[in-house]
């Protein structure tokens, strides 16, 4: 392809447009979060003076009083537990689908896909009612269980796509050498599958981190409320102040780790997101 001046100009314009589109909303949150509370409403794109007051307000009162700390811990713990369980169960299933012949294989894949498309609001009512009678309303398991259900299809699809690429001759070789199918799975295949498992884990974590519908429906206090739900209930310092600054600060704090994760593992995430999207 000729790289003349016109091409480069057009390309630079295209890149700039994409960058503006992707970054401006985040930069605006960053700008709001760094404004001193009395300047939050001044509408300036770049803060006149910089201040960390909005960030400090998030941590005031320690673990029990702060509007942010407890939900942050909840978000991290719930997302991590879900990720570990979902990846374990999905790895077994994906292995069976990628490797073994059995009736019902396609039914499982189709069913998983159907569940991934399921509207959460359709089951939030029954879960609300059931969780209250089981006593797990407003607890970690109350959120982990629905998150598992909705992240399993994602994990199964990503892992199946990765597992299909693994050189399975090695597994047979191990079995010829006397390993049981179980040993062949844990000793030979698991290490080879690690990159795929890691990718699926990131996607499941992001899914749990992002959920809002279950988080506001199945919790009622900061004991188990996750960050997205807590953000929706943020209040200002007084009845007359909007919590804009502190919401922006909290939003930036929960966004940074995900952006770092995305930047470091972008190739893996792209391959995971598009796994199985095209046959080939």
């Amino acid at each position: 392809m000729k790289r003349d001046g016109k091409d480069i100009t057009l390309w630079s314009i295209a890149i700039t447009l994409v960058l503006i589109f992707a970054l401006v909303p985040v930069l605006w949150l960053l700008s709001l979060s760094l404004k001193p509370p009395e300047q939050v409403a001044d509408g300036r794109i770049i803060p006149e003076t910089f201040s960390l007051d909005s960030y400090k307000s998030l941590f005031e009162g320690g673990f029990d009083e702060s509007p942010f700390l407890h939900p942050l811990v909840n978000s991290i713990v719930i997302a991590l537990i879900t990720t570990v369980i979902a990846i374990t169960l999905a790895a077994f299933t994906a292995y069976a689908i990628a490797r073994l012949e059995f009736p019902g294989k396609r039914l499982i894949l189709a069913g998983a896909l159907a569940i991934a498309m399921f509207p959460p609001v359709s089951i939030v009512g029954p879960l609300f009612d059931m969780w209250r009678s089981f006593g797990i309303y407003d607890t970690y398991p109350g959120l982990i269980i629905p998150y598992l259900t909705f992240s399993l299809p994602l994990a199964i699809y990503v892992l199946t796509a990765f597992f299909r690429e693994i050189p399975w001759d090695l597994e047979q070789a191990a079995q010829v050498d006397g390993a049981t199918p179980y040993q062949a799975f844990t000793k030979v295949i698991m290490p080879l599958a690690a990159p795929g498992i890691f990718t699926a884990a990131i996607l499941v974590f992001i899914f749990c981190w992002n959920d809002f519908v279950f988080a506001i429906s199945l919790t009622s206090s900061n004991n188990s409320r996750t960050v997205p739900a807590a953000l929706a209930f943020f209040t200002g310092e007084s009845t007359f102040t909007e919590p804009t600054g502190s919401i922006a600060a909290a939003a930036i704090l929960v966004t940074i780790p995900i952006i770092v994760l995305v930047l470091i593992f972008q190739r893996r995430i792209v391959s995971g997101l598009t796994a199985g999207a095209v046959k080939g």
Partner: protein
Amino acid sequence: MEASAEKAPAKVSSRTRSERKLAWMLCAPAVIVMLLVTAYPIGYSIVLSLQKLDLRFPDQTEFVGVSNYGTVLSSELWWTDVFNTVFIVLISVAIELVLGMAIAMVMNRAIFGRGVVRTSVLIPYGIITVVAAFAWQFAFASESGFVNHLPFVSEEFNWFGGRFSSFAIIIAAEVWKTTPFMALLLLAGLVTIDNQLYEAAKVDGASAWQRFTKITLPLMKPAILVALLFRTLEGFRVFDSIFIMTRGALETESISILGFNQLISRLNLGLGSTVSVLLFVIVVIVSAIFIKGFGVKVEEGRPGG
């Protein structure tokens, strides 16, 4: 079905049998979790939707048959919310498709800076939907936002003061958040197209537009349909952005918001479940249209992130 075809050989060797047993044991935990938390509750939803059941007045619970469906389907609110949801889905998915295609082509044809583009489009993907909604709401807020201070925008305009200007921001937030996923799905289809096709068409004197409509679009049809199916179904659940920006005020409610309000805010499990079941039915119908009508091969697809 699939199972009967595989059952054909009457004698199943013991190795095959043990393989099947292992496969089912491996799949069982995930399948059970998925079924318990979806199939059972949706069944329970149907049962609830046939009852008059308000948790604030549990003594008045009674079986009322399909009368809740009559109440919902004859209410103006339901049809307003159906319109709102369909409106948001159609507009946002259409914009996402065009933008996603453009970004996919930019990434595919990168002269330089491919990494920068990929990195920056992945950022919206990683951001919590609620955070994205706040970012857009704060940008357009009439006093503290920056949009009203831009040239050509009236400083007094209240974006959240009207139904369709609110929709514009809600749709913008949805589009911003989900276009990266669309672009990546389309890019995966785009890279499989053989470049020689374009070269040959160029030699034959096809214009850039002709190459796009005669080569790119037809070859990408499967990838486009899968992306549209996933995004459309996801769109029908639209909840987070509306909840954050307007809480459904000024007739901006979606079906999911209506269901949530009935179920969780008003504790009216009967009517709320009716809305839930109807939303489920809509999603099933839309999937059926895509799969039967457009011939989408869902096995080639994958659940959305």
